[in-house]
């Protein structure tokens, strides 16, 4: 599957967040991650699945919340998704832009 084929059918907003959660598949996440020079591991997917689940439960996500998830500590989260981890992980999980200030 080429990047064009995978990603061309998916709608993103102007900031690069997917607008339809149902279009998400693990392959989509892998393609998006590659565009950010990240090769997704099982640990990455554990985090992405946690984010997707929390979002569908209506939870407000924050770095602190992820640190308390039991999946990864905060340092580990920064290591998995370098740069702006919460935003990047949200993009890869196909969920909306995080609105938390902490």
């Amino acid at each position: 599957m080429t990047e064009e084929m995978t990603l061309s059918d998916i709608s993103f907003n102007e900031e690069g967040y997917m607008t339809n959660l149902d279009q998400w598949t693990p392959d989509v996440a892998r393609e998006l991650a590659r565009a950010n020079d990240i090769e997704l591991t099982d640990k990455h997917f554990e985090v992405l699945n946690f984010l997707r689940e929390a979002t569908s439960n209506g939870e407000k996500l924050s770095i602190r919340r992820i640190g308390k998830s039991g999946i990864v500590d905060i340092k580990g989260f920064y290591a998995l998704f370098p740069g702006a981890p919460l935003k990047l992980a949200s993009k890869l999980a196909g969920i909306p832009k995080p609105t938390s200030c902490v």
Partner: protein
Amino acid sequence: MKVEKVLIIVSKGTIEDVYAGLVMANGAVMEGIEAKMFFTFFGLNAIRKGKQDKLHTATVGNPAMMENVPTMIAGLPGMEALASAMMKKEMDKLDIPPVSEFFDMIVAGGGEIYACQLAADMFHLKKDDLIDDVKDIITVGDMYALADGPNTQIIFI
């Protein structure tokens, strides 16, 4: 030009001043912006062992707080502790961490914490009196060196 680094100087020790610095520093690392914090004068209370989670807000001399309460009443014993406890409770509801945990989050994200040499000397504080998250006690010259680089912003609180 994108901000690449922030140096946040915290010179005050009230809840609101310390949190302003912590929120901005943590917000920076969350965005992939390098963050350094420098604590001086009463701001040192935020990085003192045993003190950092017991910060207060001022109920006297703060007209925006409890505007319907006369200054004489606001100055009664216990008022400051009460207002501070209420403030912390409200923050907890918003998932804002206690000061000590906030520092751990910032350091975990790659932020660095420093104390002011001059103020530490003035208050007779040594490295052992400060939390482990503090990287070093440094001079004002060293502080400016932390801000080296073209796209750095210095924020003073």
